[in-house]
């Protein structure tokens, strides 16, 4: 059970080599297969997640949530997906057509690219990049451009304002996000995510870096544009933010990308702070799934508990509280490390 997926991959490579392909091409084909798997996982995850989101919101609000289609309403999202697929695709005439049409595609591509470096089990990683964490953060920063494209392309004031808000928020919160993760990197001594997981063999970094964890969690919520930081889509003021003009499948792509980002950020959280795929008994890929889902449940729990924050509060919170706190944590970690080395405990 532990090595199911790695064994399958190995068998595939062996089979391709047997067909007469060189090792490099076999790896290339394997890469493509892995990408396809990731896309599949993402899609299935999103279907489960949207159902879960609606159920969790219902439970928190003392409601039942969807319960008509299938057991506990499990097929609700499938019905929604079918409906969104068959909706009319409106492209308003005054839009910047190419930007409008390609923005959701870029968004989803960027979101799926995040998965390349996340270790989904022992040795189950598409690319074991030596700067994996930096890769995650920098690719994640590209999604701001996609949102800006969506906002600009729509030629709609709500879209533009929503996109501006989203970009301002995401750029502001990227800095505390990155700096809070640096503390973990300092302790682990590597930017390679598999190294960071291995470094948590004895103790999870959430215990060594509690401040960094809290900062990361808050910044990640803002990065994902989720409640209570969902200012870019604030329905009361901005209709649907940057997505106002998007219909049917294009809008669904945005939705898909948002939930994809949610999974990616939660998986990174599990990897950085909760020991990644390490855990007793169960196979490693199951452990990361469990941890990721628990973290996502906390994200949902927060979203349905807290009211939305005002935009200026949001920005001042990032620059005046979160950034100094994460910087202080960085300095503290540095001193702590030196202290431990000096004492000879490290």
């Amino acid at each position, binding site marked *: 059970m532990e090595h199911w997926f790695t064994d399958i991959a190995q068998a595939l490579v062996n089979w391709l080599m047997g067909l007469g392909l060189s090792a490099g091409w076999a790896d290339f084909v394997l890469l493509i297969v892995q990408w396809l798997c990731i896309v599949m996982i993402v899609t299935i995850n999103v279907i489960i997640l949207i159902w879960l989101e609606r159920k969790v919101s219902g439970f928190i609000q*003392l*409601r039942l949530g969807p319960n008509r289609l299938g057991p506990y309403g499990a097929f609700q999202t499938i019905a*929604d997906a079918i409906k969104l697929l*068959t*909706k009319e695709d409106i492209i308003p005439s005054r839009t910047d057509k190419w930007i409008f049409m390609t923005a959701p595609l870029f968004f989803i591509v960027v979101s799926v690219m995040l998965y390349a470096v996340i270790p989904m089990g022992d040795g189950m990683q598409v690319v074991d990049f030596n700067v994996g964490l930096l890769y995650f953060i920098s690719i994640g920063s590209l999604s701001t451009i996609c949102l800006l494209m969506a906002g600009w392309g729509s030629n709609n004031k709500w879209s533009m304002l929503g996109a501006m808000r989203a970009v301002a928020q995401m750029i502001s919160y990227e800095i505390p996000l990155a700096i809070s993760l640096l503390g973990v990197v300092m302790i682990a001594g590597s930017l390679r995510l598999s190294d960071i997981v291995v470094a948590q063999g004895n103790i999870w970094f959430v215990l060594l870096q509690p401040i960094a964890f809290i900062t990361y969690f808050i910044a990640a919520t803002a990065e994902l544009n989720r409640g209570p930081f969902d200012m870019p889509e604030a329905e009361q003021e901005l209709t649907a933010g940057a997505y106002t003009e998007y219909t049917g499948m294009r809008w669904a792509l945005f939705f898909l990308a948002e939930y994809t980002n949610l999974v990616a950020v939660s998986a990174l959280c599990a990897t950085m702070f909760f020991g990644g795929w390490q855990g007793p008994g169960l196979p490693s890929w199951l452990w990361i799934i469990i941890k990721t889902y628990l973290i996502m449940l906390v994200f949902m729990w927060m979203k349905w508990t807290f009211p939305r924050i005002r935009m200026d509060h949001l920005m001042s919170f990032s620059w005046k509280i979160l950034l100094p706190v994460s910087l202080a944590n960085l300095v503290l970690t540095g001193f702590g490390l030196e202290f431990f080395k000096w004492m000879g405990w490290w």
Partner: protein
Amino acid sequence: MVLKQQADDDLEMMEKNGIIVTTLEKIWNWGRAHSFWPLSYGCNCCPIEMMAAGASRFDIARYGYEVFRASPRQADLLVVAGPITVKMAPAVQRIYEQMPSPKWVLAMGNCATSGGPFRDGYSVLPGADSLFKVDVFVPGCPPRPEALFHGLLELKQKVMGKK
């Protein structure tokens, strides 16, 4: 006619042998009928009942219709709740036209159905069906949330083609 007869015979044969035959249209309609996303639009007291329908006691989410969208581009169902004044009519018309098809309209309450008490007024339209085709009328002043649900379920039957 002959071909149709043959197709029907084939269908019967397949059903007998345990092969489920369906058309894409049926699957699509199934999807559409189970996820009306209403536009959050309303005028006066009917929207209050609509809000109540979304709240815990009545819980519109059980049918999967709780995703109130603020943008008409993502909505499937226009719940016209409240009287359409002459000044509001162009806005409602525009909202309706901005919704992507397939779209449905539910006239909630008597003002939207017929103009209600204002039917002879100079400033109110006598019913939403003077602007566009309305699929389901839910009379009431205002209708209970359950009455709204009844209208939605009727609409579901209509979309799935059972009536």
